């Protein structure tokens, strides 16, 4: 009796599993068929470290207007780059989209891109937001800036990123973890502006001023300011925008630092893309990236994530332009990746976790 009973339960499990695996296989077969289509020009394969919900609306719109179907794999940038290196000539991918100039520069240094060679992109995208060797272009802009409590901080107390190391902010500063690439890029900018020794002192002073241990994300920095744990912090603009959408009466505001500093400005970074060296559809890939910098695509980027357009002539979404105008750092983003490991090591040395 016992034997029969448990056999029955096992076979039930097997049956359910079998059905499920069949449906799984069906799915894989469908995909295999699509995969073959990818070899015709009517289809492109994109590897992206931008998450699905941020890129899918763009891909869908492009299919509507051009008929080109876009398949994609999302993963962390570092993994996608290793994957592309391993796949070599056999890679199914045509385009890599990723976030952060440092990461784009690293990808270019790994030799996985081919030149974009597009007059259209050169005309639309300012030179410092593109690779100097033409391996990638920025697609959208985000600023990493100071956020402060409107209840406790007069904006005139603020000036520069370096100023957040002043004694007046002792126990009043909140920062996100140094493991996030956005902070690594910011410190890389400090290194290129001030030189490494001075940058190290600045970051050391930040660490001394920390009110709470570095947080796991930007939103937590703003939560901590709202709740009075600290008064100032550094965040990406779109995280502020997101919180503002949910709570329009936020007791926070953005401050644009480094405005009076010659050759400097607000730290900006890009999401960008390049054509892969082993793409079998390089022309179609180029057409796609060109479309991504047109105002139509830029409006979608801005709409899903409140980012700034890469084209200085393009219109900024009203909710974003409401944060005010600022002078961005004119530094070329091409070499960010060379300074990034130095920035990481610097932050390790001063104990910025």
């Amino acid at each position: 009796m016992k034997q029969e009973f448990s056999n029955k339960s096992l076979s039930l499990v097997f049956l359910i599993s079998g059905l499920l695996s069949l449906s799984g296989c069906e799915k894989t077969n469908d995909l295999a068929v699509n995969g073959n289509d990818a070899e015709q020009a009517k289809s492109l394969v994109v590897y992206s470290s931008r998450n699905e919900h941020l890129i899918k609306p763009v891909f869908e719109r492009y299919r509507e207007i051009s008929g080109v179907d876009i398949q994609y794999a999302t993963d962390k940038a570092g993994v996608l780059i290793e994957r592309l290196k391993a796949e070599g000539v056999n890679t199914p991918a045509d385009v890599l989209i990723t976030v952060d100039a440092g990461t784009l520069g690293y990808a270019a240094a790994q030799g996985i891109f081919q030149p974009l060679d597009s007059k259209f992109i050169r005309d639309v995208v300012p030179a410092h937001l593109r690779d100097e060797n033409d391996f990638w272009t920025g697609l959208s802009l985000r600023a990493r800036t100071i956020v402060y409590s409107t209840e406790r901080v007069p904006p005139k107390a603020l000036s520069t990123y370096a100023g957040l190391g002043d004694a007046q902010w002792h126990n009043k500063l909140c920062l996100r973890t140094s493991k996030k690439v956005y902070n690594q890029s910011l410190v890389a900018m400090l290194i290129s502006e001030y030189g490494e020794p001075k940058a190290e002192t600045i970051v050391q002073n930040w660490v001394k001023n920390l009110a709470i241990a570095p947080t796991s994300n930007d939103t937590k920095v703003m939560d901590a300011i709202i709740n009075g744990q600290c008064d100032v912090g550094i965040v990406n603009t779109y995280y502020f925008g997101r919180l503002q959408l949910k709570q329009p009466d936020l007791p926070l505001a953005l401050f644009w630092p480094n405005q009076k500093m010659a050759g400097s400005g607000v730290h900006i970074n890009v999401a960008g893309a390049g054509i892969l060296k082993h793409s079998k559809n390089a022309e179609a890939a180029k057409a796609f990236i060109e479309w991504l910098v047109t105002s139509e695509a830029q409006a979608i980027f801005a709409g899903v994530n409140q980012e700034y357009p890469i084209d200085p002539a393009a219109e900024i979404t009203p909710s974003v332009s409401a944060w005010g105008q600022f002078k961005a750092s004119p530094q070329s983003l091409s070499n960010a990746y060379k300074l990034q490991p130095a920035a990481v090591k610097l932050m390790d040395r001063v104990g910025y976790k």
Partner: protein
Amino acid sequence: MNRLSRLSGWHFLLLLIALPVLITLFSLVAAFFNPDLETLSHLVRYVLPDTLLNTLLLVLGVCIASGLLGTSLAWLTAICDFPLRGFFSWALFLPMAIPGYVMAFAFVGLFEFAGPVQSLIRDSGFSSGWFPNVNSYAGVTLVLTLVLYPYIYLLAKNAFQTQGKRSLEVGQSLGLSPRQSFFKVAVPMARPWIVGGLLLVGMETLADFGTVAVFNYDTLTTAIYKSWFSLYSTSAALQLAAVLVLVVAVVVALEKRTRREQRYAQARNLAMRPHKIKLRGWNRLAAVALCGLTFVLAFVLPLYQLLAWSLPEFSVELTAELWSYAKGSLSLATIAVFIVVSLALSMAFIARLHEGMFSYIAVRLSTLGYALPGTVLAVALYVPITYIDHQLQALGVAANTLQGTLVVMMLAYSVRFMAVAYSPLEANFLRVTSSVDLASRSMGISGIKMLYRVHMPMLKTGLLTAIVLVFVDVMKELPITLMTRPFGFNTLAVRVFELTSEGLWERAALPAIVIVLAGLMPVILLISRADAHSRAS
């Protein structure tokens, strides 16, 4: 000669099962030929001292806490009788279905300074300064314990349930109280199960990245990711991973050595189960309180937080796609269970038939993958596979025969989860005396037939445990799935990751709840069958 050739057939099979792991480990070892001394010296000076200490403290803390919690809960629900025992018996396993980083985010969200609990304290006019800081060693240890204790719970329960009446009776006849017989008889006899569970918990803690990241608590795995993604040094990352695996291998080998001569077979057959010990008075209350508190902390609270988050965004995420993600997760988990559990079963069987150095090493190597951070494992396996693909192509086979197929994904899963499937099976095999094998051979039943007709029925609980553990682990798995899935193929875990990495916790909550629910259905089915099975006998 005859003996040698017969052995080599089995051994070849064993080698074949261990091959994906060997390939992965080879990638790690190969990194030593190309050392990045600059990055390594920086890590040794500024990063490793802290992270190694952190890692040691975390592994110790989580192992001790989940060992104590898992074993006591298992003892209570398997051997004792108290109100709601039947419910707790399966409910206490449920927290395992919650991915660690989701639990972490729910906990931090609830208990941090800006969270609802501390805000409520402040709004009632009190200071919340006394409230323990959730972003701390204690916080991360607690959360990992709450997600990982179920491994030990399930394995230890399996041990207690199969221990048989005789051993406890012998203890009682020697004048041991129930408490004494727990420490002097039951726990020592359950050692392979408990230690097997502890090893799984320790390895999972070592390999964890998502949970510690929520607390910004730096471990060796954090240092591996830092070397790779921030310092752009793949070789330093792989070398650190190799060191991590080596340490685990040594610990495992030492443990096996200390119990080499011991035997754990039961004296009488499985049907002889002890009567449940009826708890009374304070003991009864304490048992209910411990089970209840664990269940509330590890399951009710995080689920409550997820529900609270998901409500405002319910309609955004409740789409037809959610169903396709669930289908993706369930079908992957099912296929993986078949493959991984059958491989583990074959391995355990071969290792039993042919004890010896070769089998020992093959088995130990095959179960190391669980200690590897998932992303490292995925890449360390993928790179050699693309190499094989390139070689096949040179031989005239079509391009991309392997990459982008389910084969690669399943190979990677089997490297990752072999330990999870193998632990319960290995422990259960110890319960089967060698005289059973002798008797079965004398009746002309040997080889595969013996496995199927003699061992399998005796391994049922171990098999069910392995199935449940692998199933739930695959449901939660992220890095391998992310890297090796076909285009457009999504799972719930992938969806949760995509949203949470952008900080969209409210939207991630619904797919996270579905992971828990979808992971639960087969779990409840299997566990209630296992319980019915144990009651029926």
